[in-house]
């Protein structure tokens, strides 16, 4: 093929693929606009409507008819689902999140053995991060069902919430069973790519050892979490187990009259959270199970979502390729914390007396960091596979076009190589929890931010004969409160 035609073809192909990966790298910027709409005061509603419309345009073919586009990236569905949830549109939120569930479930079933899933992996292993649809992180899959369960509770449907809890447990079980699969696939792909490169350049490598040159270990060392971030994850067993899902499960089973099923999730939650109310709930339920006469179950459950889950920022490693002499780049997305300003949540009775405060139950940010730490070897292997594929391409360009080919190869690599910055950023930074037995019909929730500044005061008018679940979504300057009696 003539040089000019070859270079035009290669350039056009990579430009097209670059545009595909670009969408994945714009997610963080787009979500900043959405979050700006949330964090204003309660009176600033026009901005909030705009951000919701922006998200809806990406998801719906017809918003009024509730008809989804034929193809939507799951991350857009997740973000819109969370946005609806925080607006109190629980039914809409569940509809959107159910669509996200349908897509990720189909992705997973195809990933076990399928040609279409392999094509996405080929894109990520040869061109750029962020090719193809967003693949939910393990903690996001579990929290999707937890959020849906909370939505059903806020609609007064504990039976439907129970279905979502079952789905969360099935998902955790599947994640556990398949935990080594993704790493094994990435390693197999990496080995195949190295072999291809070695075959392509058997006698012409000039003594360069490809396995040493393209070893993932250097990138793993560069990409490690900081010691501060590592400290946040040290109490976590895995990224897909979290105390919020366990405690919510316990509440849901309890509301469905299944006290025997309520206890195991609390026992698991106690192992992974220092929240004192979880421990106290466990003791109370064990007392009820033992038939102790004065044992009383809690009738008031408060869950507070505060702040935002981590965003991803682009990290790039530049290196001079000893094999091709070209300047190459590998990029990947690394989570960056967005800590919440909320410091304290107090629960007061109708007379203004402080009953207690709601301490930390789960840190979703820690789950995101743990997920990144677990996935880093896979990210590194995929990045090295991409680099090897780029090197083979650069080598052929150099063979066809000499130094100009090397230069063109470098430029293409530097432009096309992008990081996948997609993540479910509207999840909260942390979940706070209080539970207790409250006999009064009115309860006040007060939320403070740094500097003991009160940002929210909300009243819950409830039936003390029933069990009450309260869900609060708090941002840095405001909050919204929802509740249901059962």
């Amino acid at each position, binding site marked *: 093929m003539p040089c000019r035609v070859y270079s035009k073809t290669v350039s056009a192909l990579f430009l097209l693929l670059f545009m595909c990966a670009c969408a994945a790298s714009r997610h963080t910027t787009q979500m900043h606009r959405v979050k700006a709409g949330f964090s204003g005061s309660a009176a600033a509603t026009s901005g909030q409507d705009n951000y919701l419309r922006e998200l809806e345009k990406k998801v719906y073919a017809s918003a009024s008819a509730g008809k989804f586009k034929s193809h939507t990236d799951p991350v857009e569905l997740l973000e819109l689902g969370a946005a609806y949830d925080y607006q109190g549109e629980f039914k809409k939120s569940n509809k959107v999140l159910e669509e996200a569930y349908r897509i990720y479930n189909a992705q997973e079933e*195809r990933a076990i053995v399928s040609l279409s899933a392999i094509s996405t992996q080929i894109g990520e292993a040869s061109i750029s991060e962020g090719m193809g649809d967003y693949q939910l992180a393990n903690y996001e899959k579990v929290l999707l069902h937890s959020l849906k369960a909370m939505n059903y509770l806020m609609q007064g449907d504990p039976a439907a919430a129970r279905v979502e809890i079952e789905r969360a447990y099935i998902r955790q079980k599947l994640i556990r069973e398949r935990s080594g699969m993704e790493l094994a696939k990435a390693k197999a792909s990496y080995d195949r790519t190295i072999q291809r490169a070695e075959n392509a350049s058997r006698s012409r490598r000039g003594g360069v050892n490809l396995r040493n040159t393209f070893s993932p270990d250097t990138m793993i060392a560069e990409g490690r979490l900081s010691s501060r971030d590592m400290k946040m994850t040290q109490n976590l067993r895995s990224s897909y187990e979290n105390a919020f899902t366990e405690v919510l499960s316990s509440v849901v089973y309890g509301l469905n009259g299944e006290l025997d099923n309520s206890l195991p999730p609390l026992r698991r939650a106690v192992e992974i959270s220092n929240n004192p109310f979880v421990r106290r709930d466990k003791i109370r339920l064990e007392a009820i199970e033992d038939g102790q006469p004065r044992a009383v179950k809690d009738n008031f459950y408060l869950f507070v979502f505060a702040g935002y889950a981590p965003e991803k920022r682009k990290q790039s490693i530049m290196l001079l390729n000893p094999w091709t002499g070209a300047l190459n780049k590998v990029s990947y997305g690394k989570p960056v914390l967005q800590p919440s300003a909320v410091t304290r949540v107090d629960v007061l009775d109708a007379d203004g007396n402080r009953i207690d405060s709601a301490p930390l139950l789960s840190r979703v940010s820690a789950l995101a960091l743990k997920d990144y730490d677990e996935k880093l070897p896979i990210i590194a292997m995929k990045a090295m596979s991409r680099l090897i594929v780029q090197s083979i391409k650069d080598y052929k360009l150099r063979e066809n076009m000499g130094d100009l080919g090397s230069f063109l190869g470098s430029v293409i690599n530097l432009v096309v190589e992008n990081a996948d910055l997609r993540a479910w950023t509207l999840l909260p930074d942390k979940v706070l929890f209080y539970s207790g037995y409250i006999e009064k019909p009115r309860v006040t929730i007060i939320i403070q931010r740094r500097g003991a500044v009160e940002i929210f005061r909300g009243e819950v008018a409830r039936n003390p004969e029933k069990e009450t679940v309260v869900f609060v979504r708090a941002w840095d300057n405001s909050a919204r409160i929802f509740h249901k009696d059962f």
Partner: protein
Amino acid sequence: MTQRLDLKFHRLIWIVLVLVTAGCAAKAQYVEPTRVRANPQLAFNPNDLQMIAGKMAESLLATDIFDPAEKPIIRITEVKNKTSEHIDTKAITDKVRTTLIKSRKVKFVADKREAGAEQDMLKEFEQQMDPSGKGALMDDKAKLRPGKLKGPKYHLFGEIISIANVDKAGKDVYYKMTLNLMNLEQGTLDWSEEKEVRKVKDRSVFGR
């Protein structure tokens, strides 16, 4: 000449493709409610409802628990959904109840969870007994008579569970529905039945 033939041939191919595609568009049609699709969905679907709920009710009627002369009253509560799918268990409960009612061997009281049923009844009584409202306009003989409310003798309740397995060979989903009849006078379980449905889908080489 050859080129013109080629062009005509290509045009013909395009026309045929368009017609075939248009002809392949999905069409809706009416079918019998009991018809079973050759390639059933793995999720719980109307066929499963027919299969399970109808057979459970028939199994209960085939026993000699109910005295037709007595026509005992049953309270039925919505079947509990312990699966990981959103199943309309009210539809299952309604199917069972309708089959039993049609047999004319039993009667039912409204389920406590049926929205507004009990409230409607109480409201109707209140209105008919109100001498200054509706009650004043009604024929005394047509009014509801207090002291006639009957309680149930039996309680029918149950649950549905599922187990799903996905592996390289395909997907395997198992449903089991259990229904129990409790004698409220004696506190005994007079009848219990379970029905199972298992669906298997082998993985295709291409597509889903």
